[in-house]
């Protein structure tokens, strides 16, 4: 009987993988549901004896089995999209059944944990320090240093918290790890627990990921005996983007409003329920088993500058070949968008590329020489964030995107600090006026004689734009966390790179 492998990742399901799988089963094939290769434009993708076929509809099944399908893509492992990658975290992608302990062990699973137990907690942390692994959630803080702080803190109870509140648009790598290789994350958390002496771990998953929640919960139950005495629990978020910020996430886990906490105290010293806590992103923890199994030095040999190892880059939005592309740091933005991604899905020219989710800057093709590296993007007034890349074609209206960044911040602000809570709403109003080219006359309160400092004359478009820049400055330096602090990135980059969308010509005329 023919063995057909089809992904059961949420993205494949959304594209109709269940219907295709049923059609293969009805044709007498044995269907195995595996993780996704990450070639999203080909989903639902079926693999038969290493050969790939996609994107399939149920009516394509007969042609595939008859050997006459026009949707054959050749050997999947040799496909340029896969062959160009260097997969550490996603080494098993497309090859294993997500909830099979047998498959996981057969493909190198649990080796990292075994080695960590063999060499002891201190040497385990040394390996992670040696690897140069930096937090993959966006801030890029060295994981080894965080672990060392927690390990040295004296406390009777410590926690490992996995931040799986992946709310950034254009990011889905966390979801793919949890749905496709949940034991990898569990192994990474068990290693972290072993290293710092933690008894309990939480995986905080956003509620928008129902499939990941189910998979992780099942995997935690199935592997409980392998990570004991370390205990794991899956917790579900409740639709608050800001809970992806680590202190807000801790408040949410404790059963409070997801408001950001001021730091210090650092979560590493006073985290969940006031105890020393490691808070790491899914991808950070999922990188750890490889580091332990192969050694920190082997990991540090891959990468660029101070950005060590690999990064699962997510190509999304209006891109022809969207999906997950894991590669060592250093690849350029242009290679990612044009060579790997194949340009836009609409076939029109690329106008803007947002790197790093809703808080990331909008880049133009002039930035395509930038290497994927934390420092290089910071130097270009951008950020890598969680390595999501959203491609826009030339129909995009960048002042509308800038407005959305402010509106998103207003909708998702936790409300604790003023620059973010009020600034975002004022930002939306301001961009609306700029878009309408309306300028602004002083209102009835401003003209009152006792309002000594209020401006009495009308503001021109150029002055409104200067005001927007000033507001962004306040938000950037005055906000408590990255939500308010980074919202200026998309706004200012859109303003800087696409001045014509903000009526720049008109503004210049007005100034003259």
């Amino acid at each position: 009987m023919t063995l057909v492998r089809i992904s059961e990742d949420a993205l494949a399901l959304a594209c109709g993988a269940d219907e295709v799988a049923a059609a293969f089963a009805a044709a007498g094939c044995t269907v195995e549901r595996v993780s996704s290769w990450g070639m999203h434009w080909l989903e639902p993708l079926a693999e038969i004896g290493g050969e790939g076929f996609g994107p399939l509809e149920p009516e394509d099944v007969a042609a595939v089995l008859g050997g006459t399908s026009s949707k054959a893509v050749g050997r999947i492992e040799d496909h340029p999209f896969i062959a160009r990658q260097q997969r550490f975290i996603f080494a098993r992608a497309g090859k294993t059944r997500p909830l099979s302990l047998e498959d996981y062990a057969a493909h190198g699973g649990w080796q990292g944990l075994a080695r960590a137990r063999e060499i002891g907690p201190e040497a385990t942390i040394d390996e992670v320090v040696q690897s140069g692994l930096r937090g993959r959630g966006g801030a890029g803080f060295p994981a080894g240093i965080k672990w060392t702080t927690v390990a040295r803190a004296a406390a009777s109870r410590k926690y490992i918290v996995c931040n799986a509140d992946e709310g950034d648009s254009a990011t889905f790598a966390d979801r793919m790890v949890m749905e496709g290789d949940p034991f990898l994350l569990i192994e990474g958390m068990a290693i972290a627990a072993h290293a710092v002496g933690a008894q309990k771990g939480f995986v905080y998953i956003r509620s928008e990921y129902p499939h990941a929640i189910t998979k992780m919960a099942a995997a935690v139950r199935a592997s409980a005996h392998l990570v004991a005495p370390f205990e794991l629990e899956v917790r579900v978020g409740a639709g608050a983007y800001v809970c992806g910020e680590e202190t807000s996430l801790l408040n949410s886990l404790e059963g409070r409003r997801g408001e950001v906490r001021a730091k210090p105290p650092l979560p590493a010293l006073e985290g969940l329920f006031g105890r020393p806590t490691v808070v790491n992103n899914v991808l950070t923890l999922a990188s750890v088993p490889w580091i332990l199994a192969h050694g920190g030095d082997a990991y540090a040999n891959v990468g660029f500058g101070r950005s060590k190892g690999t990064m699962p880059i997510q190509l999304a939005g209006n891109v022809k070949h969207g999906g997950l592309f894991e590669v060592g740091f250093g690849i350029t933005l242009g290679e990612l968008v044009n060579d790997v991604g194949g340009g836009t899905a609409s076939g029109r020219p690329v106008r803007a590329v947002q790197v790093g989710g809703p808080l990331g800057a909008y880049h133009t093709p002039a930035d395509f020489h930038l290497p994927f590296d934390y420092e290089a993007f910071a130097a270009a007034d951008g950020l890598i964030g969680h390595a999501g890349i959203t491609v826009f074609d030339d129909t995009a209206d960048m002042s509308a995107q800038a407005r959305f960044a402010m509106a998103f911040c207003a909708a998702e602000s936790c409300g604790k600090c003023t620059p973010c809570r009020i600034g975002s709403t004022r930002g939306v109003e301001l961009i609306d006026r700029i878009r309408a080219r309306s300028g602004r006359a002083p209102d009835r309160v401003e003209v009152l004689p006792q309002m000594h400092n209020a401006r009495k004359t009308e503001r021109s478009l150029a002055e409104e734009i200067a005001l927007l820049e000033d507001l962004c400055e306040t938000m950037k330096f005055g906000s408590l966390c990255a939500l308010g602090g980074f919202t200026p990135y998309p706004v200012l980059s859109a303003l800087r790179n696409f001045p014509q969308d903000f009526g720049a010509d008109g503004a210049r005329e007005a100034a003259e």
Partner: protein
Amino acid sequence: MERLKEIIAAHAGQEGPLLPILHDVQAEYGHVSEEAVRMIAAALNLSRAEVHGVVSFYHDFRDEPDGRAVLKLCRAEACQARGVEALAQGIAEHPRVKVETVYCLGLCSVGPNALAGAKVHARLDAAKLAALVDALAAEVAA
């Protein structure tokens, strides 16, 4: 209210049980009522204000029932780049289906996307979206 007591009892001994309890209550009743807030607050030794604060903070919890089926349409940047705004303009008010905005379902390379219950839908166009709304409406009516 027996069921509510069971839900609260099921989470006894859990660390930080409020969100798990609220999720179960929301799933069971479709909203978190004033009475539920009162009982949960008493059981967890919290003030009603604290529990209300949590219910009102998170988008997933509502304090009033809404009998309509919910379709969560992603309108974040990646779906915007794939044309979701044009789709969203075309959605009319429906008596039995509420189309809510959600920011990101993590299917960003195949948008526009939507989530109905635990079922995800990708590569939506106007016709597919309309069919989805109709199918949900039929489910509610049945």
